[in-house]
């Protein structure tokens, strides 16, 4: 009898706690989408902001976000993929791999405000790039590097040894084996890594604010300062500029995150079924 009560209490409490987790998620997303989706319209998406974002749309912010994200992913992807290839294909027997791996792990744990400080001190001031897409993009590229390395490495590890043997036994070189057999068979994993990196770059605020600034005007070069959607959301929320636009911007961010997660999941599950 006591055992029954104990069990009831146990399952009841962990059930309740997990239920709370779902409720938190649903209420946050639900509340913001409910209040914001209605304000996302053609004008919001395609018009430039007026009077600090109180009026008009967020077109230049969307473009700024796109350029900054694209730039950082373009820089980080080849480096991340190559680093992952190094760890799985070239690292065997090299003693100095340990520290390199350790530092890669460390990089993943550094908080974004530190990246912001670093980007500000190094790219903005030391290299004299100023608050710009270049400074912000390079800072973001370093930030998303560990995400890319990890995702690519996970998928490289699933490539069977027999593919490598088959290719080498036909007289292919190691590099040919990597570019023609190994990478093609883990493209979905690399793609997932890129998508997750994009998600991180879009959502990042603190580091971007300190490195790309928060210029509302449409950027015309990589040396222009720009404002991303996350930074815009922060400015609107903290300065209480327009609740309507704030909800709309937050909703747009959530919708983008939803799309990104769905895409990543779809690729992963398709990949798992195939292999």
């Amino acid at each position, binding site marked *: 009898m006591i055992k029954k009560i104990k069990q009831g209490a146990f399952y009841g409490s962990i059930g309740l706690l997990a239920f709370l987790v779902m409720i938190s998620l649903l209420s946050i997303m639900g509340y913001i989408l409910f209040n914001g989706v209605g304000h996302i319209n053609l004008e919001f998406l395609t018009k430039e902001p007026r009077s600090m974002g109180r009026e008009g749309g967020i077109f230049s912010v969307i473009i700024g976000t796109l350029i900054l994200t694209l730039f950082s992913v373009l820089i980080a992807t080849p480096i991340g993929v190559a680093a992952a290839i190094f760890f799985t294909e070239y690292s*065997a*027997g090299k003693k100095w791999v340990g520290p390199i791996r350790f530092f890669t792990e460390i990089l993943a744990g550094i908080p974004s405000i530190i990246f912001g400080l670093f980007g500000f001190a190094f790219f903005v001031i030391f290299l004299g790039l100023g608050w710009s897409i270049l400074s912000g993009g390079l800072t973001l590229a370093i930030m998303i590097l560990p995400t890319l390395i990890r995702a690519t490495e996970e998928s490289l590890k699933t490539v*069977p040894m*027999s*593919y*490598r*043997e*088959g*290719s*080498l*036994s*036909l*007289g*292919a*070189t190691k590099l*040919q084996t990597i570019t*023609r*057999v190994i990478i*093609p*068979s883990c493209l979905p994993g690399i793609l997932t890594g890129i998508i997750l990196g994009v998600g991180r770059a879009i959502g990042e605020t603190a580091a971007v604010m300190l490195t790309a600034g928060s210029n509302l005007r449409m950027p015309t070069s990589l040396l222009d300062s720009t404002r991303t959607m996350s930074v815009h959301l922060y400015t609107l929320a903290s300065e209480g500029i327009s609740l309507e636009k704030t909800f709309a911007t937050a909703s747009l961010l959530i919708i983008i995150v939803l799309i990104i997660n769905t895409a990543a999941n779809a690729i992963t599950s398709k990949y798992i079924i195939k*292999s």
Partner: protein
Amino acid sequence: MENASTKFEIDKLNLFYGSFQALIDIDMTIYTNKITALIGPSGCGKSTFIRTLNRMNDLILGVKTTGLVKFDEMDIYAVDYDVINLRKKVGMVFQKPNPFPKTIFENIVYGPKVHGEKNRDKLQEIVEKTLKEVALWEEVKDRLHKPALGLSGGQQQRLCIARCLAVEPEVILMDEPTSALDPVATSKIESLLEELVEKYTIVIVTHNMQQAGRVSDYTSFFLSGKVLETDKTEIIFSNPTNKKTEEYITGRFG
């Protein structure tokens, strides 16, 4: 089988995995256009040995070899020896079929493309020729551009043999090529071997005594990293000199 010319000449070959010695003083001759079978219980070193012939053991960390392996009179473990060229001439078929996750066509042209063949017509020709050689053409000619992984196990293995033939090797190493296949697929591969040996030198590792007896011209018996006996297959199977060989062949251990 008189005066057959030799393809491989192995002299006092030793191989170590770290401190473990996997092959001990191996001496062997492999004759051109013959089938040499390597038999012996699991862990005796026969798979390790066959992988020294195309230097696939290079992939494993901490492997050290001493002694001489001569292929066409050249020491393949010499410092300046071209391993890529060796592997081109000495193809390999693995225990489990390992087609790439590409189409049937792309699997076969992989080797030629890697070695610089770009001509589409030529590649097409190679695909047809090699698939016919392994008697797979009729079965797959309508789906050359479908994934190779959709084939049955036996078909996949024949595809892997065709892929190996496409780089025009002189030798084909086979590491228990039928152990993952059903009896029908196995017998197809065995009869294939009889045709292939007209053009190629074949070395085959097998667990299956009958297979060794049926297909090979020469047989080597491996035990604990040593070659206990090498001879013409009919002699090994009817009148072995070593007592251990006899015990293994008659099924008393292994």
